[in-house]
């Protein structure tokens, strides 16, 4: 027992897998427990925090009778398109910035500057420029992810071992081949990981994008629920965004595992 505790408190020490996942479950249950005590125990006014069961029934009801599914579809499309455009431009630009000094010199300062400007502050401008339609919502997602994504891809590319590039020259690689046959495959795991992280951020910009001038989507649903004092609906919206984010994260991780088996000794 004593030995076990010592093991748990040693940095970097591996623990049984079962214990690891149990720990996660316990934290989750504790969270539920606190929520339950606060609500079922009548400690907090249900107008501020509804019970878990109230949230669950509202969720089911919204799925069955409400627009929840179409809201999810609309929000997912906005996040996906905004993010895809950011990735489609950000990946090649980031790779070029990470490998060609002239590209870095040209773009790093301006991107490094813009990324500190909050995407939400651009919404009034965007509405002025392109109106209240879908492109405006997607642009907010784009602005929220593009600049970080590009800079992160640049860093990933810069970290490609210089030796690998030099040995490729001695093996006869032309400049174009260097990008396609060496730099891109070497940076690919880092690129996929960057996409996973920034796609997570894209979800967090969703509500911001749907606060103004939207008439559908999860963010809209949350804003409406706030107006009509429906905290259970708000929590359903938040939980669904969380679950969707988690799911896409898991998909990226699965793609990563399946594509880069060469990074693991057992090759599995």
């Amino acid at each position, binding site marked *: 027992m004593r030995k076990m505790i010592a093991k748990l408190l040693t940095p970097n020490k591996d623990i049984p897998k079962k214990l690891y996942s149990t720990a996660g479950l316990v934290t989750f249950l504790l969270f539920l427990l606190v929520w339950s005590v606060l609500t079922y125990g009548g400690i907090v006014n249900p107008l501020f925090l509804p019970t878990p069961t109230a949230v669950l029934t509202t969720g089911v009801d919204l799925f069955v009778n409400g627009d929840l599914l179409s809201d999810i579809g609309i929000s997912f499309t906005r996040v996906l398109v905004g993010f895809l455009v950011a990735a489609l431009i950000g990946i090649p630009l980031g790779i070029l910035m990470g490998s060609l000094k002239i590209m870095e010199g040209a773009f790093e300062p301006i991107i490094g500057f813009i990324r500190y400007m909050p995407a939400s502050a651009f919404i009034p401008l965007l509405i002025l420029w392109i109106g209240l339609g879908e492109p405006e919502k997607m642009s907010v997602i784009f602005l929220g992810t593009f600049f970080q994504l590009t800079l992160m891809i640049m860093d990933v590319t810069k970290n490609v071992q210089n030796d690998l590039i030099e040995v490729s020259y*001695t093996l006869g690689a032309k400049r174009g081949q260097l990008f396609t046959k060496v730099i891109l495959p070497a940076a690919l795991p880092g690129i996929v990981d960057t996409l996973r992280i920034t796609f997570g951020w894209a979800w967090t910009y969703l509500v911001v994008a749907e606060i103004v001038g939207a008439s559908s989507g999860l963010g809209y649903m949350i804003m409406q629920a706030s107006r009509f004092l429906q905290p259970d609906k708000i929590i359903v919206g938040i939980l669904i965004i969380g679950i969707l984010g988690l799911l896409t994260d898991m998909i990226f991780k699965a793609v990563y595992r399946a594509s880069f088996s060469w990074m693991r*000794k057992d090759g599995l």
Partner: protein
Amino acid sequence: MVIQAAKNIIENNVPQVKTPKLEIKEVGKVFKTKSGETTALEKTSFSVSDGEFVTILGPSGCGKSTVLRIVAGLEEATSGQVLIDGQEVNGPGLDRGMVFQSYTLYPWLTVKDNISFGLKLKGVSQKERDDVARHYLQLIGLEGFEKHYPIQLSGGMKQRVAIARALANDPKILLMDEPFGALDAQTRNIMQEVLLKAWEDSKKTILFITHDVEESIFLADSVYVMTARPGRLKKKVPIALERPREFSVKGSVEFAQYKEELLSLIREESLKAIN
């Protein structure tokens, strides 16, 4: 008529001065850095003939890697020129293969695809690539590992693949910068024999940098000793040990004599480097 005939006779009888495979002519290198200029290499000249195995010994920081990188075309000389078969080199080329001390295999490619990487760049057909890869896999003793990824190999195995990859491109010259420097002593000894076998099989010209005096003797036709920085050629020591060489030659009297000579040459320079 007569004159022409006489001329022919003369021309045909003049012993052909063999142009060396690799010629380094007055090559110097100055690095400019924030803290000033570093002369890494003083004007250095030497040559290597076709099929010769030359090892370079020298104190740390004397410019060994710099010379090799200039020959490889990865670094530009500040002065002088490098000639291969009498032609000046500019930049890297397929006629020079390189093996680095760090493991530079492509981690996303299998052993087989690593070996045939250069051929693929050239557009050689799959079948021919497979044949070449098979030949070199056998030469380096890694049959059965063709589907493995670099992460699944030991350091010694990785360097064998790196050697095979360089040879598969069929370069005229193989440049090796302390390729066994990161390996343990036993693996190193085995790698030396693997390399000698590969050299005898392929008859390449090899320029090989090492810190290890025994390694430099065991492998070489000639050992070139460099001075402390700024480096230049200090002495050329031809090694007249019999070929093909067995591991046992390391215990011979001649070997010990070479070792003593080289150790004292290196010691002189290392002391200079310190003072």
